[in-house]
């Protein structure tokens, strides 16, 4: 096979251009609209002739701006806070999932507790469970069962420290949401990392052990650096799910732990939608995944194909 690029029919390029426009078009449309005033969006002087304004972004970010924009009387949209919540939840759950998942994957490969089949069945089973199915039990458990009794030792201490009434429960805390995200993503991460760890030659580990490294040192200093591409793919997938998830977060969060998707849905369901502002929030939510896609599309495709082709 020659590796040179074949000359193609112009119609072929037209088709490609059309496809690209179809897949990226809506995103660009949202991007453009987020710089328009609502008047411009509604009046329909469409096209590219409009005065770009960052007013929408100012409205969206009003609770963390260092200056007070002139056009806002009252900062109702607490986007900044939600953004920070989303960031905390997504980052911590990604890191936890990776650490715990890579350890488990290592154990599965090296010590052969179960066959690889067991791992793939579990992955499939968990992939099968829709978040909506987890909603009911998680809502019940996090609110009623996973609590420290308010009169108990730990619960009392937490309540004294942070205030609040009633029992101290997982619901409404960052850790509650993080816990379910970690659990949801673990099987997939374990399974993806397994295929990378299998490729690490055993002799490397033995050499490290002969030099006097303990099992944890071998794992963190020898194995982890060697499976970086796998870690990157797994990290992107975990982060994406934790960052984009709406349903479970909406059930488990309270006023102070709202994430960005919840904020967007709450603002959408009102009758009179402020398109400009909502598009600006949407754009801000979409930016991290877009950046990841542009930087690491290769890893994403690896993760995606590994997820199905070997399934």
């Amino acid at each position, binding site marked *: 096979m020659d590796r040179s690029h074949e000359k193609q029919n112009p119609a072929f390029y037209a088709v490609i251009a059309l496809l690209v426009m179809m897949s990226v078009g809506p995103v660009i449309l949202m991007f453009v609209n987020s710089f328009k005033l609502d008047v411009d969006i509604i009046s329909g002087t469409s096209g590219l002739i409009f005065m770009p304004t960052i007013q929408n972004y100012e409205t969206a970010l009003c609770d963390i701006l260092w200056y007070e924009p002139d056009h806002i009387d009252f900062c109702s949209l607490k986007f900044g806070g939600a953004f920070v919540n989303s960031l905390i939840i997504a980052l911590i759950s990604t890191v936890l999932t990776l650490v715990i998942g890579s350890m488990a994957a290592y154990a599965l490969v090296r010590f052969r507790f179960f066959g690889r089949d067991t791992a793939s069945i579990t992955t499939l089973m968990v*992939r099968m469970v829709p978040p909506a199915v987890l909603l009911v039990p998680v809502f019940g458990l996090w609110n009623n069962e996973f609590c420290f009794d308010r009169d108990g030792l730990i619960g009392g201490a937490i309540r004294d420290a942070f205030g609040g009434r009633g029992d101290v429960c997982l619901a409404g805390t960052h850790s509650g949401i993080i816990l379910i995200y970690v659990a949801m993503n673990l099987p997939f991460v374990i399974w993806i990392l397994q295929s990378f760890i299998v490729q690490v030659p055993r002799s490397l580990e033995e050499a490290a052990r002969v030099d006097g490294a303990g099992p944890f040192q071998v794992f963190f200093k020898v194995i982890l650096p060697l499976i970086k591409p796998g870690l990157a793919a797994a990290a992107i997938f975990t982060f994406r799910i934790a960052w984009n998830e709406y349903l479970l977060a909406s059930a488990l969060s309270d006023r102070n732990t709202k994430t960005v998707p919840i904020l967007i849905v709450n603002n959408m369901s009102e009758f009179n939608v402020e398109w400009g502002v909502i598009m600006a929030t949407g754009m801000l939510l979409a930016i991290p995944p877009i950046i990841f896609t542009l930087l690491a599309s290769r890893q994403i495709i690896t993760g995606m194909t590994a997820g199905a082709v070997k399934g």
Partner: protein
Amino acid sequence: MFMAPAVAIMAVALIYPLGYMIWGSFRAWDPTQTIGEAEFVGLKNYITLWSDPNFRESLGVTLRFAFFCVTIEMVLGVGLALLLDRNIRGMSVLRTMFILPMMIAPVVVGLMWRYMYHPTVGTFNRFLERVGLSDVDWLGSHALTSVIIADIWQWTPFIFILALAALQSLPRSALEAARIDGATPWQQIIHIKLPLMMPVLIVTGLLRLIDSFKVLEVILVLTEGGPGLSTEILALRISRTATEFRELGVAAAMSNYLLIILMLLTVAMFAFTKFQEIRAARVRMAAEDDS
């Protein structure tokens, strides 16, 4: 020792909740009660649901949604993969552009499409007006179609990427042989490429089918299940039963129905991959016997 944290977390946050849900589905349970206080009602929740026309409607919508989405996405995705499987400059850039819709939050996807479907200011109706056609009531009388279109936009690239990966790993020798024997491009596709890709395609289709039962946010933002029940898929109905109607027991029973459907699909998929492996092994054995 390395396994302990993973096992602990999955037991606490996955296995236990699922068991809890199955237990809860036999009770008349509302959110103010703990599960111990709720009255045990046996199979009542399941039976009520089975005779509930709304639930049936919702189940029908879910099945229709999944069927149309997966069928159209498979045809488009595989078609595109066959079309674009050439040595062209910038293929990686193209793939990057295509995976963009999948990476964006479903909530944002819903937001974009809700704008484009808007009856007066939306992109589609403006376009129709400009070319002199009458408006279409996208999220009203054609709600299900519109929702399916949005899902197709988001997920066709997934099938495309996987089909392309499958195409590019096909044995070159078979294609070469066909070309030398004078097979037309169509014959190559129908008799060689598609049969060889079939195992991957079936797994991909099943994965997509399972995922299409999980779609919720896009529909929630686009139509909130309306108008009427026309787009209320099961996942959405579960969440509404739990949070609006406050009937956790019924919602749990509904979740179990959904789980059973998905379980059947998963088992089918697993059985299929096992079957493939066995067949491959038998072919290999036969080949070794011959030599």
